[in-house]
């Protein structure tokens, strides 16, 4: 050890650890970036002035009142059982359009619960009536 000669051996920057440093940076970015995917209930609104006339037989009204109770085609329904009821009605009439109408003072949460139930019943024809 002590007998080792000390002489200048060129001025190279050690690059062997470069890869490790870059890996560390890469892992840091991979860990810190949270990819919070946006998810939610998809819906396509009808275009302005594209109101269609629908046969009354093919409309199923779904009303939500301000306390979150649901009236499906005139009968009060528990939100939990809504998808079952809707599925039944769709089985009877596959042209059925479900018209969701919420009271102005009703909560958004109740509305989402209803839409979610309709989606669970595989209802594709959902119309959103303007609340009044």
């Amino acid at each position, binding site marked *: 050890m002590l007998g080792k000669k000390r002489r200048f051996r060129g001025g190279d920057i050690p*690059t*062997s650890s*470069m*890869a490790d*440093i*870059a*890996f560390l*940076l*890469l892992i840091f*970015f*991979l860990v810190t*970036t949270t*990819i*919070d*995917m*946006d*998810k*939610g*209930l*998809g*819906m*396509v*609104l*009808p*275009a*302005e002035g594209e109101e269609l006339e629908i046969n009354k037989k093919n409309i199923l009204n779904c009303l*939500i009142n301000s306390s979150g109770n649901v009236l499906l085609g005139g009968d009060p329904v528990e939100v939990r059982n809504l998808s079952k009821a809707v599925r039944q009605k769709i089985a009877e009439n596959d042209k059925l359009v479900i018209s969701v109408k*919420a*009271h*102005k*003072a*009703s*909560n*958004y*949460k109740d*509305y*989402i*619960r209803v*839409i*979610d139930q309709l*989606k*669970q019943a595989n209802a594709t024809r959902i119309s*959103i009536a*303007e*609340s009044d």
Partner: protein
Amino acid sequence: MKIRRKTQLDSEIPTASMPDIIFMLLIFFMVTTVLREYSGLPISLPKAKRIEKLKSKRHTSHIWVSKEGLISIEDKLYQAEGVRHVMYEKRVADPQLVVSLKSDERAKMGLVSDIHTELRKADALKLNYSSKTAVD
């Protein structure tokens, strides 16, 4: 310089380009990750089961609605009537636009309904009710 013997085979994996490869990966990840641009309003999202993922962040525009009835787009507050203008411009710039409605679960439907109307007028028809995954 030593003169190498010809019989000795050089059997090392070349690692000199390793940092370059990793830097490329690093830059790729840095470029592709879109950081959250706007902070929005403090809301608690409703829960739903049948949720879909939004395909692309680049074609998504958010509308925040708080329980007090405030509407915020890109950290600016708007009245319900103002939504139409903003969304129309966005829609013109990007025909694939999907509007993500981040509304508080206690927001009133009257306001949400007004936003529906405004979006229809702005021709921004693809809507997504942002919600959390419900667990049974």
